[in-house]
């Protein structure tokens, strides 16, 4: 029972923002890609027929809060840890990104998944909900890197 309520909560997150029309979907959703295409031949990026990947949300407190709630409700914390600080999955708040840290790259990772275990949430979450997760992650402070660890 509670488990269903939690899922309704997730839907609520998605519905809380403006209704997503097919037109706005096309604006937010990147073209279907395969992983090798992340390497751009001759250094020239392929055209993005789906439009630009611009985060429609500002890092205001409401979007960040909703993104954080979805991060927990969709079990992202099960792999990436509470607060996205890393668990079996990598930390998403240490400023280091395997697949690019720009908003659009993070969106693409969540929407399509990544080949080493990241599930694709594009069929489960609305683009708006994913953009809010991106907004949440981007709002987390990045700790300073410690290149030398000392024990004495």
């Amino acid at each position, binding site marked *: 029972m509670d*488990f269903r309520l939690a899922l309704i909560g997730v839907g609520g997150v998605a519905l809380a923002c403006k209704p997503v029309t097919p037109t706005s979907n096309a604006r937010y959703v990147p073209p279907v890609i395969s992983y090798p295409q992340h390497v751009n031949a001759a250094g020239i990026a392929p055209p993005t027929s789906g439009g630009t990947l611009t985060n429609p949300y500002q890092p205001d407190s409401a979007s960040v809060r909703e993104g954080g709630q979805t991060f927990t409700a969709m079990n992202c914390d099960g792999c990436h840890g509470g607060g996205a600080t890393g668990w*079996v999955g990598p930390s998403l708040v240490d400023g*280091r990104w395997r697949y690019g840290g720009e908003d659009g790259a993070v969106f693409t990772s969540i929407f399509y998944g990544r080949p080493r*275990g990241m*599930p694709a949430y594009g069929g489960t979450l609305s683009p708006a909900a994913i953009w809010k997760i991106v907004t949440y992650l981007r709002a987390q402070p990045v700790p300073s*890197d410690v290149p030398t660890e000392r024990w004495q």
Partner: protein
Amino acid sequence: MRLQSSTFLAAVLAVLAVPAVGQTPDDGQWTMPGKNFAATRFSSLTSITTANASTLHPLWSFSTGVLGGHEGQPLVVNNTMYVVTPFPDVLYAFDLTKDGYPLKWKYRPDVNPSALGTACCDAINRGPAYADGKIVYNLLDGHTVAVDANTGKELWKVQIADLSEGETTPMAPLIVRDLVFVGPSGGEFGIHGWLKALDLANGKVVWTAYNEGSDKDMLVDTSKFRPFYDHGKDLGLTSWTGDAWKRGGIPVWGWLSYDPDLDLLYYGTGNAGPYNPEQRPGDNKWASSVLARRPRDGALIWAYQFTPHENWDYDANAEMILADLNIGGKLRHVLVHFDKNGFAYTIDRETGEVLLAKAFTTVTWAKGINLKTGRPTLDSAKLTGASRGNVKDICPSLEGGKSPVSAGSFSPHTEYFYVATNNLCMDYEASQVSHIAGTPYIGANTPYHAGPGGYMGAFIAWDAVKGQPAWRIEEKYPVWSGSVTTAGDVVFYGTLDGWFKAANAWTGQVLWKFKVGSGVVGCPIVYKGPDGKQYVAVYAGIGGDWFLLAGDVRSDDPADVRPPADFARDLARHTSQGGMVWIFGLP
């Protein structure tokens, strides 16, 4: 050389004719994960002794080129050593008859890398099994393969598990006669756990037995099913509330054993899901249990639940070691099991009656096990759940009083069981969690700390008749390796800070140690080489759980020592990742 099936049958019959388990004829090979059906990991070879173990030295090593946790063990069959790496699950065949042990072949399967995100606890593999000229093992992505032991040619590959449901398959199969037994991981992903029997000839599924659900799903025939403590129909349904059983977890990722005389297959089941127990009221049978089934049709004969309504992620996937012990003046056919919950159980393996259950490490969640009811006497202050907030100082931690990965051994000489243990406790803060297929179904935050005494692990010799340790070697870090014991009364184990050690099986005196380059989470083996000499082999390669990786041992991970793994922050002073196979011998 390929064994003909009639030869194989004759070998099985020869085994059947020997009355005492663990005393089966030992040809010096290592053909199945636990050395023999009884899973004793005892070698009858005698060249290495307590007198000469100090002269052991490394003879050979090989980098697997893989960084994941190197669990499980190699096989040695027909003078060939077979090694399966963690993901991408490469199978190497080394020719032990030639100088430098060159490769005969290697088999590189196509494994779906998506499995990396569905494996709860690193991309591990617990090893292959050999029978009838085939090396059989599981790929992480839910497939079982059989490879020709001579040529490396793939003979069959079948899908047994579903990644999209959160199932992965790192466990080591057991082969009994013409059947291969396999099960899934995924207790953290809301799976519906099972055990399958595959036809050794072609990999086809012969039967599937679920670990929860109706009697029909669980292959229970009420006229044959005789659990010692529980009665009633459909216990796998009635011990749950609503349909929580459908995503109730209960994986099979540990070790299997088999008693040819009783014709019973034994395996432990994993945790119930999710970690927040308030989402699954009831005993949650048969989570955290031992199940005894008939191999040929899967019929459940008896079952015993170690931890009813499991609150602490206490999987029971650890090995069931079969031994015949003199208890109260009577020779009893028992299985001995060291549970994650911190108790060591001596159980009549014919009936499922618990003869003895004593704590082998620090335990706070229960005061003891009531032998009349088979149930633990709980400390109600240590019960967990989303409504109970942060429950402090629960021992053992959810890594277990003993990790089920670290398969122990039994010596019929000393009649001791040799087991790697953890002295870790945890706080447990459960929360409500939603089930979304293919994503984690956990709902708890559980930071660890060292138990009383400050040391985090110990390697112990356990007397399963008295229910107490005969000796113990305390270690600074949790101990996660398996062990092997020999008729030379030497026992071998490894440590997370990268030492491989030999100890006197009677006294626990450390006779020799060697730094193998990375923490040991594998299980050592002992075998006879083509020259008739005795050898010891072990994997180095720390990993196998997130907390082992998070302790700054990953050079490519600047996240460094992050909570809740910061209890062992200086582990990185002694080890980093890296998979190696080592072979040791006498001068």
